[in-house]
């Protein structure tokens, strides 16, 4: 795992956007983020479950919106205008991720990236690529594949 982290995040100067999901700190590589929007109601999808809120019109593209809290097993967000949608790109596809709030842009060096602590919960280990330790806290590096990837299994 730690090898993966250093491999995929190699480079001297790394920038992460930090945000909160159900009170916990998470972050994403800034290069994966396309934009951050205020929450607006989405078009729900039938038979949707497991953290899929629906679809949103992003300048003519139909993109799915996920509730990160629900995907991470942290309960369900009741979205309001105070929340944000982080639009990310993965494999040429765009996704929207609902988060509580966006906090800051974090500049770190590679040696500040740490492997995921050996936690018991498998889903936590799968959802996180690693952690960054901060002065008095830490933030989890979210694995986009976990947040968006297992969805098709959930529906089918």
């Amino acid at each position, binding site marked *: 795992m730690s090898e993966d982290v250093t491999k995929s995040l190699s480079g001297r100067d790394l920038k992460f956007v930090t945000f909160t999901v159900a009170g916990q700190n998470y972050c994403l590589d800034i290069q994966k983020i396309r934009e951050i929007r205020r929450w607006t109601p*989405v*078009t*729900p*999808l*039938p*038979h*949707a479950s497991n953290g*899929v809120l629906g*679809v*949103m*019109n992003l300048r*003519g*593209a*139909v*993109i*799915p919106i996920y509730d990160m809290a629900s995907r991470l097993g942290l309960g369900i967000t009741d979205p309001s205008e105070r929340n944000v949608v982080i639009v990310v790109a993965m494999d040429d*596809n765009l*996704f929207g991720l609902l988060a509580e709030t966006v906090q800051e842009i974090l500049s770190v060096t590679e040696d500040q990236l740490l492997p995921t602590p050996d936690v018991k919960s498998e889903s936590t280990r799968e959802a996180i690529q690693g952690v960054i330790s901060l002065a008095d806290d830490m933030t989890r590096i979210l694995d986009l594949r976990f947040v*968006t*990837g297992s*969805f*098709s299994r959930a*529906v*089918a």
Partner: protein
Amino acid sequence: MQPSIRDTFFEECEELLEAMVEGLGIIDEGSYDSETVNAVFRAVHSIKGGAGAFGLTDLVSFAHTFETVFDEVRSERLAVTPELVAVLFRAGDQLATLVEAARDETEVEAGPRDSVVKELKRYLDEPAEPEGGAAGGNGTEPPGGFQPMTLDFSALALPAAEPVAPMRSFEIRFQPDRAMMANGHEPMLLLRALSELGTLEVSAQSDELPAFDELDPDECYLKWSMQLETDSDRAAVEKIFEFVEGLCTLEITEAEGAAPPAEAPAMAPPPVAASPAAPAGAPAPAPAESAPAAPPPPPRSRVGDDEAKGGKGSSGGANARATLRVELDRVDRLINTVGELIINQAMLSQRIAELELPKGADVEVELEDYKLLAREIQEGVMAIRAQPVKPLFQRMARIVREACAATGKSARLVTVGEHTEVDKTVIERLSDPLTHMIRNSIDHGLEKPDKRREVGKEEEGEVRLSASQRSGSIFIEITDDGAGLNRPKILEIATSKGLVPPNAELSDSEIDNLIFMPGFSTATEVSNLSGRGVGMDVVRTAIQALGGRVSIASETGKGTTLTIILPLTLAVMDGMVISVQGQTMVVPIASVLETIRPTDKDIHKVGSGEMVLSIRGSYVPIIDVASSLGMHGQSNPITKSVLILVETEQRGQCAMALDAIHDQRQVVIKSLDRSFGDIPGISAATILGDGKIALILDPDGVVQIGGSRADAGAPILQAMEFFDE
């Protein structure tokens, strides 16, 4: 090697293979001329040439054998017989297989390839080889001349390859003939190249130089004697004169040892005295006199970037239409933008409608024009992506041949309407289902030749593949003249697999449609063809993914027809805008038979809570869209609903109940992200005038889920329920 050039090569191979197959088809029909044969030869030859550049030796060697046989045909040394044509077709198929393998970097089966090679070589064993290319008899082996060619220039390319080579000394006498100058050679350049090999001393003899006014500018009057000190060998020196051999008088003598050869050498190999070229002595014609009878037409300025031009002129012959090769990306961006334009137009219409202007206001008249123009642009842009189905159909000829070979049946493919144009993506994604359906037709549809003879049919069966455009849809039909579906057997299989309750009463067409059911596969006898784990249900799914549907009709003893109906374009469709529990959705107009506002007496309860609509003396099930889609809000009572009567594949006519119908308009189809998987009841989405997303309903899906909650027992529904999972 840049991958893009490799990609271009395989792209070009596709075109060349198409041209080849087309040419072979014409040859097969017997209506060919020499240009047809040339075109096929060139196609194979170009594949060989490109393959060589990429080091695809398998492909090169096969193409070479193929081409050699074709060259015999071209030069009329080999007569075109049906047997030969059959071999050529097989060779064409094999070539396509090799191209695919090279592209995918996989191995081909050696067996079939070698047997085709053997068949081809049989035609080369004939003695008639008077002017064959390379040395060594009958040309059945890839001539030596082809393989080692890259060696040709290595001496020059790497002049310093042997740093410790001993110094040699050459004496060279060189006198150009007139023909050498006429062929564009420049003696000075030869001398310069020589000087690059080492130290060159040159002395020119100008004693033959005439008086200035007698000087013929096309003649070379000088001769040179040179002495070259070099670490290169004789071959390297000869190499420099490679192109002028025969166009000059040339003597190269190597002095043994390092001593400068003062006198004529005794031991040295005989001088390479190039014999004067035959035409050299002939008077060089004055340019104007020898001009070809017809002067070339005024220059069409059509040189330039490859990227900017396209027309594959070679395939059909003379009059290829001018074409433009454009990156697909650009077209798709344009299509997207036009989609935006249509949405924008819808938004504008809505805003203007909200203004509640008096009827006939100028702005509304202009808006109508705007709509028309937008639609025209859209159709024009869509046409760019449209391509004839011909190449797709041509590929199927190969499938037919392969399937026949595998099953011991005999069949010809007849294609109709191959100029029908279909969206590029549709064509690409139709290839697999079509392949499977054709295999199926031959494997399960057609009878064996002896059986056909027994029932008084021609031994060779016919598979007819036709395409046509009717009322905004594309129809593709695969018809065989085989035995028709074996309905008792289908029913038996379906029953044994639990797809149908025992003693169910199904109509013929319902039985026929069972073959599309997941889990149904007729491969009781293990067939190595169509029974590769893909059933017709996969075919149906693939067609549905393209927004189309597939149906089957069969007549015992006469044959079977599979019909694929596809939307004209993937990107837009006419839709009916509806609402379901406050959510706006779209129903494809194509599937709407009629809309009904029911009254109490039209609606009947059946069993526990199921409703049917009485319409013109028959009953159709009513499906509540909201509950089918799992929406939990409050629905109107059915009698307050609007019903849309739709024709579905699996349950025939059904009435979908929803809250309201708002509008009918063209919508731009936006596919939902694949990571969603299949959303039952929803095929895609669109963006409405207000910028909101509306989901596009898939009536088949809606009905299927809706039905699955039905209780058994209602007699009129019984037949339909068998299709439920």
